[in-house]
């Protein structure tokens, strides 16, 4: 489970960067400015952070 959590965190982190750079525009408003991509970046990184916390909960001593 810890590995899955870390892989998901890495995935969301990369997706966030791609949104931030404007390389992907999936689920963004057509013709939108940079702000809408930043929203997606923040949400993707928030999910990455949650996955890291999930990994932390998997690895702590019981």
């Amino acid at each position: 489970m810890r590995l899955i959590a870390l892989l998901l965190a890495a995935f969301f982190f990369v997706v966030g960067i791609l949104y931030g750079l404007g390389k992907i525009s999936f689920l963004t408003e057509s013709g939108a400015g940079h702000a809408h991509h930043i929203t997606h970046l923040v949400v993707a990184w928030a999910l990455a952070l949650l996955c890291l916390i999930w990994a932390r909960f998997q690895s702590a001593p019981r």
Partner: protein
Amino acid sequence: MTFAQALVLALLQGVSELFPISSLGHTILIPAALQWHNINRASPSFLAFVVVLHLGTAVALILFYRAEWYAIVRALFASIVRGRLGDDPDERIGWRLVVGTIPVGILGIIFEVPVRRLFGSPAPAAAFLIINGLVMFAGEALRRRQHRTAERKSKPIEELSYPASILVGVAQSFALLPGISRSGISMVAGLLCDLDHEHAARFSFLLATPVILAAGLLETPKLFAPEAHLVLIEAIVGGIAAGIAAYCSVAFLTRYFRSNDLRPFGWYCVVVGTIFFALARRGVIT
């Protein structure tokens, strides 16, 4: 937008964001009913103004629940450092808020733009306002039935299960539809998951805080867009007015739900929604 219009919209936002009557629906219906044709809801300056109103509302909610938020955030950090879940009530509430917020973030990103395009006019907003009222009636009726036929007891927020927290979060996502109230729909979901009215309202307001704050903060760049000719004095007064209205609203509602239910708001939504829907169908408001 005149100063008076800005003030009315700010007070409307502050009150209707927390009362279960849909702020989005009211900010579509009221300007349309008052024939405020000078307000373009899609213009950068109006969007920037709305950002300030959201920030004012979020600050009011944080101030009202400042002691709770301090305890919750502290407990969450302690839990992360420890690396395991504990039995501290603040920590349990915190993780339920985190879990409940995830669906709003994901579904908001997926559906916000198409929903705004499809339903951002008075007729759909009025129709959804009627549905919002009916949902509150149905929620109250189902809850009464649940607690009459089975030996189910109300429980506090910290005893809510994680799937139930996700359910409340998913329910809150329906507030993307103009006319569906964030606090109303999440309270109904909370009631059906065995929270009582007081705890359902508290969970709903706590759950709304990060969402409203994020909505404000993420849209902050719109304040500085070159085409956003934001009149500073209107924005500042609007933000403060929205904040004061939101603070008074949450103070009133937390007392109200100690001994009352959602039905009066259900009646309001059905009646007002029906009137506005009829006006929109006749072309009186556009």
